[in-house]
């Protein structure tokens, strides 16, 4: 009948319209993402790259989720599988892999400390790193994670207290970092003067710094137990931050005015009147007592709150950037009006949904990597991190990822005594952590662009990579077995190192190389030091 057909049509049309822009109970987030991204491409008249092949996807998502390339067996199994939902199953497997928790811990350790944490005490932080990994193993909701770090209770060797240790006696530095890392707000300019074009005034900066003014890093005397010192974060009952006006008017010895704590966009904190008195002397033998009123805890609660205007957007933007290259607002820690998101509706959607899903980062990760937007091919117009995601991003592997990928690609196996669990030296074995961190630890410039540089290649060319390649049962041994057909050896070589079969010309060239007596170890070397290996793309 005419009436019912029209009704059906209308229903169908409205359903189609619904799934393109709105999330409802039936539409997974990934589809909403794809709808919005496609709309943007259309608006900008961009032609996206073709979808990623199985090989491209396998390698990319495995590195992103567990910090390693898949093994040869895993590669073969995935590429040969005919299962229609194999990609989804792969993602599920990787998210439950214990290495995912380590990968997340590494990522967040870099965000919270970087390679060169300020001060001299936070360089060794095995306790914090172990604690962080446990949080991700348990998939602790992100708001709880943030709050725990910012409340910094307990011993630094057990976890969160380590974060503030890098900002010992430097509440201003801590303020810059906390607002940047947890809120995506850049206040550092307002430290010295009212911001030239953003809304922040110096009093905004000092109002935030005031929350940390009473913090004191206390070193506890502990006997034995490893090479890490033990710290606790004490908070005094009294103390204020002094504000002396714009830096250019600064005069040595000028006393400042105390500034009361004030959340951004809010009025001053209501706190009980502080009794006059001198700060207490915290002893070194036991953790100091908690103050009756903790400004630090108030700050932690205000930050890690769905009602905070920046908190949720900052995290979804950061996680988006982790997998897609650029954040929806880029750089990921700059959510200012002068840096608007390229897809505002997407940002809103992600933020809203993360709250609904109670800050479950695993869930968000799953949705992002299963979107079509994530699964595009890397072959594009050359931009490493495309602004509108019309091809996949190319990012350098971290030093830790590189060491693990080299081990898996070469088929290296440990033998002999193992180093202390979690020690950096184990992460980079058989290579030395000192050189690895020095040459591969910070491959980008301060603006976040990849540079690499001479030292990387000198190390790869003349350094100890030979200790990773070679040995019993290694890939090099297999590739060098002259009794096996050369095409099989080349195929295995590519599948194990680059997780894809070789092209015809690659097979031809490398076969010729092996047949002319080229050492197999050098063939493995050539592949694992190539650009295709060094990046995730």
């Amino acid at each position: 009948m005419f009436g019912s057909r029209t009704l059906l049509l209308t229903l169908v049309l409205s359903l189609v319209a619904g799934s393109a822009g709105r999330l409802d109970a039936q539409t997974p987030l990934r589809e909403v993402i794809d709808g919005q991204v496609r709309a943007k491409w259309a608006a900008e008249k961009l032609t996206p790259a073709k979808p990623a092949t199985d090989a491209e996807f396998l390698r990319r998502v495995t590195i992103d989720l567990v910090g390693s390339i898949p093994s040869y067996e895993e590669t073969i199994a995935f590429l040969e599988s005919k299962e229609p939902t194999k990609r989804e199953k792969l993602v599920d497997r990787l998210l439950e892999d214990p290495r995912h928790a380590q990968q997340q811990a590494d990522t967040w350790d870099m965000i919270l400390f970087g390679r060169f944490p300020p001060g001299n005490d936070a360089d060794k932080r095995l306790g914090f790193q172990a604690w962080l990994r446990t949080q991700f193993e348990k998939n602790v909701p992100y708001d709880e994670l943030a709050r725990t770090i910012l409340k910094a209770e307990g011993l630094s060797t057990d976890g969160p207290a380590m974060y503030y240790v890098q900002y010992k006696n430097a509440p201003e530095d801590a303020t810059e970092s906390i607002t940047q890392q947890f809120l995506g707000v850049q206040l550092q300019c307002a430290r010295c003067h009212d911001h030239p074009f953003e809304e922040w005034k110096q009093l905004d900066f000092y109002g935030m710094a005031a929350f940390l003014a009473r913090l004191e890093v206390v070193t506890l005397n502990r006997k034995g137990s490893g090479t890490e010192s033990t710290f606790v974060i004490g908070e005094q009952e009294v103390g204020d931050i002094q504000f002396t006006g714009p830096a250019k008017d600064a005069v040595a010895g000028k006393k400042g005015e105390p500034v009361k704590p004030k959340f951004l966009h809010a009025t001053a904190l209501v706190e009980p009147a502080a009794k006059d008195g001198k700060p207490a002397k915290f002893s070194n033998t036991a953790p100091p007592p908690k103050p009756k009123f903790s400004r630090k805890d108030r700050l932690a609660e205000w930050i890690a709150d769905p009602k905070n205007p920046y908190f949720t957007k900052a995290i979804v933007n950061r996680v988006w950037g982790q997998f897609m290259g650029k954040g929806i607002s880029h750089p990921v820690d700059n959510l200012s009006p002068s840096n608007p998101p390229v897809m505002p509706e997407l940002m809103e959607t992600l933020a809203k949904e993360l709250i609904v899903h109670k800050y479950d980062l695993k869930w968000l990760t799953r949705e992002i990597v299963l979107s079509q937007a994530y699964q595009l091919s890397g072959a594009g117009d050359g931009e490493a991190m495309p602004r509108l995601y019309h091809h996949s991003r190319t990012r350098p592997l971290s030093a830790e990822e590189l060491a693990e990928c080299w081990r898996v690609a070469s088929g290296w196996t440990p033998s002999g005594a193992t180093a202390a669990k979690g020690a950096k030296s184990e992460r980079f074995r058989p290579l030395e952590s000192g050189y690895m961190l020095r040459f591969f630890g910070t491959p980008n410039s301060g603006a976040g662009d990849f540079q690499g540089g001479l030292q990387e290649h000198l190390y790869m060319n003349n350094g100890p990579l030979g200790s990773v390649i070679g040995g019993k049962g290694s890939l090099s041994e297999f590739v060098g077995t002259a009794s096996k057909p050369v095409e099989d050896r080349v195929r295995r070589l590519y599948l194990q190192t680059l997780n894809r079969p070789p092209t015809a010309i690659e097979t031809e060239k490398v076969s010729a190389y092996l047949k002319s007596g080229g050492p197999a170890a050098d063939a493995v070397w050539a592949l694992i030091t190539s650009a295709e290996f060094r990046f995730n793309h």
Partner: protein
Amino acid sequence: MDQPDARARAGDRGNTMPPICNPTAHLSRRALMKGTLAAAGGVVMNWGGLTGTALGEEAKKERKHCILLWMNGGASQFETFDMKPGRPTGGPYRPISTNVNGIQICELMPKMAKQMDKVAVIRSMRTSQVDHPGGIYLMHTGYQPRGNIRYPEMGAVVAKYQGLGDSDLPNFVKISSNGDAGAGFLGPKYQPFGIGAEGGLPPFSTSQKPELDEKRRNDLRSFVDSQFVETSRSEVAKMHRESYEAARRLQKARQAFNIDAEWAKSKDLYGDSEFGRRCLMARRLVETGVAFVEVGQSSYDSHADNASWHRGLVPPMEHAWAGLLEDLKQRGLLDTTLVVWTGEIGRTPTINNRAGRDHYVRCWSTALAGCGIKGGQTYGESDENGAEVKTNPVTEGDFFATVYSALGINPKKENYAGIRPVPLANFGSNPVKELLD
């Protein structure tokens, strides 16, 4: 770009690297076009960046170079450039006259006394980091150490703005010196290439493999990379490949660091000391196009026996410095090479009970010569005891602004640390106009 034909011809000749005597003969355009500068191994040496196609452009633009003479530990201004004869702070050394009327320097520097027409001395340095780590950072970067920002060293800045993109040698070389700020937020491309105290190359700079094996595996790797670059066309893949090519060029160019043959001829000019050798290496590297070379001497930290320490350290230093200036002048390089002399701190006017001088930053001396600098002058004065700056104080920011300006680099240019723009020389600092040509 590369010129395969020229390479092949040069390789056939089997030339070893010619001795560098006279730039006009060896660096002439014609000589290059003929490939007469080819080194063993068939790679055309990239002398000062005068490659085939870029020839005309490069010949026109004169790149600037910088040599930083780093007096680690803090040389005493009272035993070098700011003599206070007859004052209780003057110490036992006496001043001598120089080839500039009215300028006197320490008797320990008779050779530099004949070079003072080239040198501008700042006697009014006034900085704020009095300990070694802070002072070393300050006088390498021009900035106070700051928790959240990693400022780059002078060498990284000069490498970025005056370095040659595809040169055979790294653009920032550090010979036996201190300072670990490195390239900071400018990125790993500008990290220093560190030569050891006795001229040793840094770890991993030399291949362990026979030449043929190297070539074979390098060819294979280049092939692998070319496939990926073609398919992905990613800019970072290209960067990866370019850095790799640079590392390969370095393998062939590293004989530039071997100065034994030249040392035999230059020993008298530079003085028979390790510092003399390092300065010779610096001259040679600058001549081959390296933008920035830092040469260190250690250690001037004379908390005890200050007079003896300086008698040990200053004569070989000044001999080499004078030799360097003379050598650069004769080779026509002084106009395009800035020679900076500084340490991290100065030393106290008061002599302590160990006959030493301690750290002091309220008033101390540095010196500049060469490219962009008006020599033959002193800038700024200290008071009669050398305790405070009397006129024209110069901060570390001003010092760096002056150095960059002399090298034709605008000190207000900005780079990014995160989203934060950071000028090369600190906000509020200014180049000292009187020092600039």
